[in-house]
């Protein structure tokens, strides 16, 4: 019995590891890394690091940040996470203009196209909306509170994305489901009309990206999943158009792993879909995919390896599609001093519009990175690559365990299930007071 309990505690600790995140301003004016509860911002235009200020009157982040994003215009930025806070920042002064307190831990966040609403999802599968009243105090107090707009019944929502035209909001969960909902004009009253469900993944869905090729104004949706595939969807009908198996390729080039499916952890693309990049669990580098939208095919175009056991935990391409920004790191990892370390790598994107394979990708050396050493020492916490790499040695396996514990459905033996039934949380609460008396 004791062994079982020990096992459970271990899982709880490992779950606390959160991946480092990276997000770049749509016009590459700034870049943000979130590591643990810390946001690191570097101003690419002014070539300097930025310190954040807070006018919202709310508390600062005190636990792992799980989601960050810019809005389409680049004027707003949002961060949210395990401390149940959603913080909204204005990017001209990098000042927090609003702190929203959620009931549960926040797992995803997105800003509506016109920048007037922020939506976020909690770990119970409810998506909430807050209105950003830019005209000051004109709106009623009730509009200040987050309102629930939709729900994935008791499932962790992994990501939220708005379609390029702003008409739809897509939400993905660990029950293999992608829901595409019409984002109404008055979202505070709820988003009830479901455009489609995109069903086909056989494991949790980890990431989404909308693409809008010039010949197809309606656009498409791309998704990555724990089932090692990236899929292309017609999100208007929910029809699966193409499936690209990336797991085998990731395993081939890495002799590691035990034959289980490495999950696709992140996806990023240029707005027209000419560039699609994915990161994969335990895979040293990124994979460049190519999509032929007329033939409805999706395949791996190039494997971009990165040295130094570099497994990116988050990817981002700006609207300009000049660079691919990647980061590797995790919260609660061993660190040299007081600063947590992460590794940032940047790839340059070369446009090959006439090529059938779309764009190409080249890994930049640290010296060639925009912002150079100044940027890296800000975002990474240090510019000493050898030190960072030794600190990050166990990051990948810790993150793999954390993702597994968080998103993979647990299979219990019948004895263990009985044991868990006996030790249900609601019963424990009842018993404890007696134990203390």
């Amino acid at each position, binding site marked *: 019995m004791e062994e079982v309990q020990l096992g459970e505690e271990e899982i709880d600790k490992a779950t606390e590891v959160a991946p480092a995140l990276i997000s770049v301003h749509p016009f590459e004016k700034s870049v943000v890394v979130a590591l643990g509860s810390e946001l690191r911002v570097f101003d690419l235009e002014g070539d300097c690091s930025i310190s954040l200020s807070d006018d919202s009157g709310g508390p600062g982040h005190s636990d792992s940040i799980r989601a960050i994003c810019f809005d389409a215009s680049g004027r707003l930025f949002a961060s949210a996470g395990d401390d149940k806070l959603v913080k909204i920042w204005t990017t001209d002064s990098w000042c927090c203009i609003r702190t929203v307190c959620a009931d549960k831990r926040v797992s995803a966040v997105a800003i509506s196209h016109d920048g007037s609403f922020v939506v976020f999802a909690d770990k119970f599968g409810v998506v909430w909306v807050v209105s950003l009243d830019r005209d000051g105090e004109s709106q009623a107090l009730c509009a200040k509170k987050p309102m629930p707009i939709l729900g994935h019944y008791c*499932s962790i929502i992994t990501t939220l994305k708005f379609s390029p035209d702003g008409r739809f909001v897509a939400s993905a969960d660990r029950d293999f489901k992608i829901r595409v909902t019409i984002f109404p004009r008055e979202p505070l009253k709820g988003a009830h009309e479901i455009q489609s*469900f995109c069903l086909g993944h056989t494991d949790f869905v980890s990431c989404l990206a909308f693409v809008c090729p010039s010949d197809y104004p309606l656009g498409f949706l791309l998704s990555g999943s724990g089932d090692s595939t990236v899929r292309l969807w017609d999100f208007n009908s929910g029809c699966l158009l193409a499936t690209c198996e990336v797991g085998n390729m990731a395993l081939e080039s890495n002799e590691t792993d035990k034959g289980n499916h490495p999950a696709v952890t992140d996806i990023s693309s240029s707005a027209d879909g000419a560039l699609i990049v994915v990161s994969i669990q335990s895979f040293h580098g990124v994979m460049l995919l190519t999509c032929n939208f007329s033939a409805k095919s999706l395949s791996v175009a190039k494997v971009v390896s990165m040295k130094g056991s570099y497994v990116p935990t988050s990817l981002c391409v700006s609207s300009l599609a000049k660079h691919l920004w990647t980061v590797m790191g995790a919260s609660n990892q061993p660190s040299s001093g007081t600063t947590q370390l992460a590794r940032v790598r940047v790839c340059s994107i070369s446009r090959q519009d006439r090529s059938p394979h779309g764009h190409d990708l080249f890994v930049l050396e640290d010296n060639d990175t925009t912002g150079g050493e100044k940027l890296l020492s800000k975002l990474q916490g240090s510019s000493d690559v050898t030190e960072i790499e030794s600190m990050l040695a166990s990051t990948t396996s810790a993150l793999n365990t954390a993702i597994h514990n968080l998103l993979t459905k647990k299979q219990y033996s019948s004895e263990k299930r009985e044991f868990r039934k006996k030790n249900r949380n609601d019963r424990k609460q009842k018993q404890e007071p007696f134990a203390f008396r």
Partner: protein
Amino acid sequence: MSNNNEKAHHNGQSGRLPRKRFYRARAHSNPLSDSHFPIPICPSEVDYAQHFPHFFPSVMCDQDKCDAPVPKVRFADIGCGFGGLLVSLSTLFPDVLMIGMELRDKVSEYVKERILALRASNPGQYENISVVRTNSMKYIPNYFEKGQLSKMFFLFPDPHFKEKNHRRRVISIQLLDEYAYALEVGGIIYTITDVEELGDWMRTCLENHPLFEAIPEEDLKADPVVELLTSATEEGQKVARNGGQTFKALFRRIAFKE
């Protein structure tokens, strides 16, 4: 246990109705828990031919398949319990495919055997009803395409009195989004309960949902299904025996407009 199953199977084949005492089940099941039964990935993965063999051409005429439209389930009884409503509806709408969804394994097993027994003893009848074991609060979109259903039934659902358990109720504003997705415009949602508090809750949820409108009284009188809500189900009969009250809420799916 295996003995019972054998017996049950035998019952089904010989046309003898299964006996409830072999299928005793807990009255409640937790809809929030992770499911450990197989779930179809998407509606096209569900083998409806296996559920309704009479309505699907045999494997031989596979080539003609594309010509004839594939019959689709039109009615869903969510939390069908022991299947009383399905059995009554089956003869009322003999050409309509309908499916019951039940979370409790043993209960769904009972309904399956009951349907097999009815089919065996009434050749040509009861071919249009079947049952699946699933959590309909999580997996409705895995079974039905958009706008596929014309009727959905929620009869005597679990009341979940405690406020912290309200999210376990099968009718909620958020779950109604998914039911609206599965229902065609004009499709009807039928709810009934003997618990006044839950009746108010279900009515309020439906009234507040922009994709549903209340059905006028006179339309209800013309609908032959309404009477079955109380007379055909076990729970309904129990309430009638005890002289209890029931609370209905019937709403129609309307088109989204902005």
